[in-house]
């Protein structure tokens, strides 16, 4: 059973050393992310991390690889960015189960994974890595799309209200067009948390580099 959930973004900027020198906007974001992840992992007996990637799979055998990356020791696949970002946020020694969901996965696939995670026997914290739109303005990586801000606002409102139905209803096609990399992961969370009563808090919502980042926490009442 899921007892707590934390939502964080996963820009490469969160990985160690990527920004070169310290960047204040990134420090502020990392602080919010680390606090949410620490809160979640401290609220449960086990941790499951879910993040968007090329494909849906589990990551059972993580080992250090070349150049500071970790990956699947058997296949040589590198842990995807979304999960790597969370890995740098988790305190040392915290063990977790790692799950990637295809960014383009149909909602039904996300729902199936969410239900599977919810069915686990232990009190579990979910850490969900997902980014909002990268098309929020003329300087955004994907340039401006006027639908981006309303989309992100709807996601923010749903996370603030623990509104699983609205997350479940997010349009995969529109999300793709808006370069949203969190839709499938948020829908896993919606399915995993469906039917519960939650206290929700949005700790961070901003787009310092043109991509929308959200940090939120849900606690089962």
């Amino acid at each position, binding site marked *: 059973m899921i007892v707590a959930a934390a939502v964080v973004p996963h*820009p*490469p*900027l969160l990985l160690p*050393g*990527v*920004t*070169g*020198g310290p*960047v204040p*906007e*990134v420090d502020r974001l990392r602080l919010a992310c680390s606090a949410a992840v620490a809160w979640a992992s401290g609220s449960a007996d086990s941790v499951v991390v879910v993040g968007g990637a090329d494909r849906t799979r589990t990551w059972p055998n993580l080992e250090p690889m070349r150049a500071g990356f970790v990956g699947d020791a058997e296949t040589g696949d590198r842990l995807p960015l979304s999960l790597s970002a969370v890995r740098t946020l988790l305190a040392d020694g915290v063990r977790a189960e790692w799950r990637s969901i295809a960014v383009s996965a149909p909602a039904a696939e996300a729902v199936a994974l969410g239900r599977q995670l919810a069915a686990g026997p232990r009190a579990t914290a979910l850490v969900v890595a997902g980014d909002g739109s*990268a098309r929020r303005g003329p300087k955004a*990586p994907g340039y401006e799309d006027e639908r981006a801000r309303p989309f992100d606002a709807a996601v923010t409102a749903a996370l603030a209200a623990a509104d699983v139905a609205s997350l479940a209803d997010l349009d995969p096609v529109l999300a793709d067009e808006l370069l949203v990399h969190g839709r499938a992961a948020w829908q896993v969370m919606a399915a995993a948390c469906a039917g519960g009563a939650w206290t929700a808090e949005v700790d961070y919502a901003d787009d*310092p*580099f*043109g*991509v929308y980042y959200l940090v939120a926490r849900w606690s089962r009442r």
Partner: protein
Amino acid sequence: MTATAQCDLHWGSRIFGPRQPVVMAIVNRTPDSFYDRGATFDPALAFQRVDDVIAAGAEIVDIGGVKAAPGVEVTPGEEIDRVVGFVAAVRARHPEVVISVDTWRAEVAREVCAAGADVLNDAWGGVDPGLADVAAQFGAGLVCTHAGGQRPRTRPHRVHYADVDADILATLVRLAERAVAGGVEPTRVAIDPGHDFGKNTWHSLAATRLVPRLVDTGWPVLMSLSNKDFVGESLGRGLEQRLTGTLAVTALTAAWGARIFRAHNVRETRDTIDMVSTVLGDRAPVRAVRGLG
């Protein structure tokens, strides 16, 4: 010849690693130096210059009381008057900065070391062997320079070398080893091929190309290039138009492993060597966010 690895350079209270190039800012206590033409002969302006160059990223200030080119005679007493009090005041004002003094005279060197100087920049190539003795006595650093055996404050006239590369290499290694034999700490010695000193432009260009081999000697290499005539003659540029050429040679020699850059234009020199260090992977970008959000 096999290469000797570069080691840490200990100057003043600072330790500079082999891949940590530094800026030595020129601060003239002269009424007539070639580039700034006495701009900091006034003590207040000289103090302002020191504050400015430190703020702009210089680790070292190189204070000189006698211009290099021929001109009005400056006695040792006059040189001491120009430099010693100023060194003491800079020491009090900036405890961390490395203070170098550009002099060839042991009697001046003794006074400035007593006043707090950390390094003696012997830009005239060891004409006064007593200078190294002073460095040894005070535990100071020493820059050994190739000046082609010229007397101080003379211009090169029809200078000839049988083999300029060999002359520079052998002279610098001999001066550095002589200094160490005389008691100067090996970690406090640097070498400077002495652009324009006892050299025409062809010689200075050869000295530049020699930098990789100078680096291979293991001694930290100092580059004194700033706005010099070899840059001006190479590009056909007057005194005010030599910064680009200076920075080009700065970048090239920084990439080849030169470590100390004596400069008038501190901010530009700092940016140049920082950019080279960043490309080489020795320094992280200040703020890398583009495409990573």
